[in-house]
């Protein structure tokens, strides 16, 4: 008979989930699972709505990454209209998506994971939060606040508000960029770049302290998926899907959004509301994929901006770079890329053009939009009837792509760090921290219905509670 440890909810992630650790009779970890306990409904209740409402509706999936859903949804609607949006509209959407990636990555790194990284996995849990960071390293906390604020201000300047901006519309964007707003954004970027470089240097300096975590945080071979441009550069708004294996060999390349069903299938597991997408040709579960900042760096040949590209080339020299612990470093490199790329785009001569929207009636009954969200590749697929009403929605969210790898990662960490009949807080924190490395957004991949207190129990075969931790 096996024993079971339950961590419920997992803290410092976006949404609510729990972890169960199943012990064998000898006290070793037999299995571990990440359960998403929320129920999702967006695919169903969008049915019957006019298609042009979809960007605004889909943005409501999440208050952390509404822009990502706006982008993918607007692209799916562009496909329904059958239009090629004006180049300046695409450039402005690209800027907003980059600002979104930067502010979300800053939240993940500085607010959610910095407590573990700065104070240590075994530190006092009452201090292991953003206030603990604030007390121990105010500069790091200030840097986190500034980077997140910079991303949010760019989104607000472009879209009118930080959360749920309505500026992205089918066919482009609703308003051109003013010179005043462009200059305000450009003025923020040198400081943001300096802060990001400081954070990268700091993270590299602490890496030697985490050699055990590097070796056990979802450190195994999987496929990696992300977008690249036509030259193989890192891409986040519009490009081709590429899949590489653990050795960097290209498995799929130059795949368009319309190809996504050839690449991806979805499985459902009884222990979770979160589906488990996988690479269709290799089957379930051999087709385990990872997406997000780390896989994007794995699939890209290079980055088109100089500072971030220098970091990418250095990253490529790290022997254990497939460890999901390196999601943290990849996040910082992508923040750097975001600021550099926004600078480049806003300095292009026609960026203030007022031709930012294409108008059309629906010209297709089916549309697919794919973009890179902070957490990975995001897919929106819609079908409409002759009246433009939605008849079918399929959303594959980045967090879902990572589900199989997160479960395998939890098992790997539990097998390394959880031993015997006594639980230590630091041991369980590591089990949570591997999930945090992926930065899952459960609000996106499901639909929140509530929160439960953290309660971890280790129960013997006879029902006796051997150990218990509650938060």
């Amino acid at each position, binding site marked *: 008979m096996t024993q079971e440890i339950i961590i419920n909810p997992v*803290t*410092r992630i976006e949404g609510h989930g729990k972890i169960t650790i199943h012990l064998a009779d000898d006290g070793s970890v037999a299995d571990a699972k990440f359960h998403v306990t929320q129920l999702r409904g967006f695919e169903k209740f969008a049915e019957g709505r006019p298609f042009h409402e979809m960007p605004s509706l889909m943005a409501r999936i999440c*208050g952390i990454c509404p822009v990502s859903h706006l982008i993918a949804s607007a692209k799916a609607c562009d496909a329904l209209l059958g239009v090629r949006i004006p180049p300046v509209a695409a450039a402005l959407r690209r800027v907003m998506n980059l600002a979104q990636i930067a502010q979300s990555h800053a*939240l993940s790194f500085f*607010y*959610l994971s910095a407590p573990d990284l700065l104070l240590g996995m075994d530190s006092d849990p*009452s201090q292991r*939060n*953003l*206030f603990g960071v*604030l*007390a121990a390293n*105010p500069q790091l*906390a*200030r840097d*986190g*606040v*500034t980077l*997140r*604020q910079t991303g*949010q201000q760019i989104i607000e300047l472009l879209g009118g508000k930080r*959360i749920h901006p309505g500026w992205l519309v089918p066919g482009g964007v609703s308003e051109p960029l003013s010179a005043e707003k462009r200059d305000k954004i450009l003025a923020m970027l040198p400081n943001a770049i300096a802060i990001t470089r400081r954070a990268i240097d700091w993270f590299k300096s602490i890496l030697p302290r985490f050699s055990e975590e590097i070796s056990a945080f979802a450190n195994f071979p999987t496929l990696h998926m992300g977008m690249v441009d036509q030259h193989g550069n890192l891409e986040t708004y519009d490009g081709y899907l590429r899949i590489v294996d653990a050795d960097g060999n290209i498995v799929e390349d130059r795949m368009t959004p319309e190809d996504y069903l050839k690449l991806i299938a979805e499985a459902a597991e009884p222990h979770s509301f979160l589906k488990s997408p996988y690479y269709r040709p290799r089957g379930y579960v051999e087709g385990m994929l990872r997406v997000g900042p780390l896989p994007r760096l794995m699939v890209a040949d290079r980055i088109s901006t100089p500072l971030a590209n220098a970091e990418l080339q250095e990253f490529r020299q790290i022997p254990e770079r497939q460890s999901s612990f390196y999601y943290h470093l990849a996040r910082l490199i992508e923040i750097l890329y975001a600021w550099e790329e926004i600078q480049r785009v806003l300095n292009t001569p026609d960026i203030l053009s007022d031709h930012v929207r294409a108008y059309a009636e629906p010209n297709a009954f089916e549309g697919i939009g794919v973009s890179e969200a902070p957490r990975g590749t995001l897919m929106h697929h819609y079908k409409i009837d002759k009246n433009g009403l939605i008849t079918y929605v399929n959303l594959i969210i980045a967090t879902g792509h990572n589900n199989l790898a997160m479960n395998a990662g939890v098992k790997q960490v539990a097998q390394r760090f959880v031993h015997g009949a006594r639980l230590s807080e630091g041991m369980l924190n590591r089990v949570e921290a591997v999930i945090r490395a992926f930065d899952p957004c459960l609000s996106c991949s499901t639909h929140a219905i509530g929160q439960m207190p953290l309660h971890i129990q280790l129960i013997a075969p006879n029902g006796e509670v051997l150990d218990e931790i509650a*938060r």
Partner: protein
Amino acid sequence: MRLVIGIGNTLRGDDGVGAAVAQQLAAQQHLPDLRVIACHQLTPELTALISQAEQVIFVDASANLSAGEVKVIPLELDLADLENVRSLTTHDWAPAALLMAAKALYGAQPRSALVVIGAQHFEHCEQLSESVRRALPCATQLILSLLRGEAH
């Protein structure tokens, strides 16, 4: 700069009263240094904005007061109380936590107060209940008097 932060979800009935008060204050033309924002929840980034203000007033709904009752709660800063205000999440900080963070990070100590308005109905709708709606002018005037230094 003086700052008013209206807190609440406008899709949950009376919970949106903080945002409604913020909207009324934003229309005041005679206070050029007044900055008014409305937000669902308080997040850590607000510390940077708070650090630039000489005065900050938070406005929120309260389920602990009778509907329409308006009350000013002084926000005492005591770093020893940090344990009581810290949150595990990144989206729902308490006003006192933000003020303490602004002090610790930026050395800022703006004059501050929390104005709460008693609320009853938090179901899914965009309307305030009648008694809460009637309290809006009173709450707005109270905040204006706080901004003028006339009320404590």
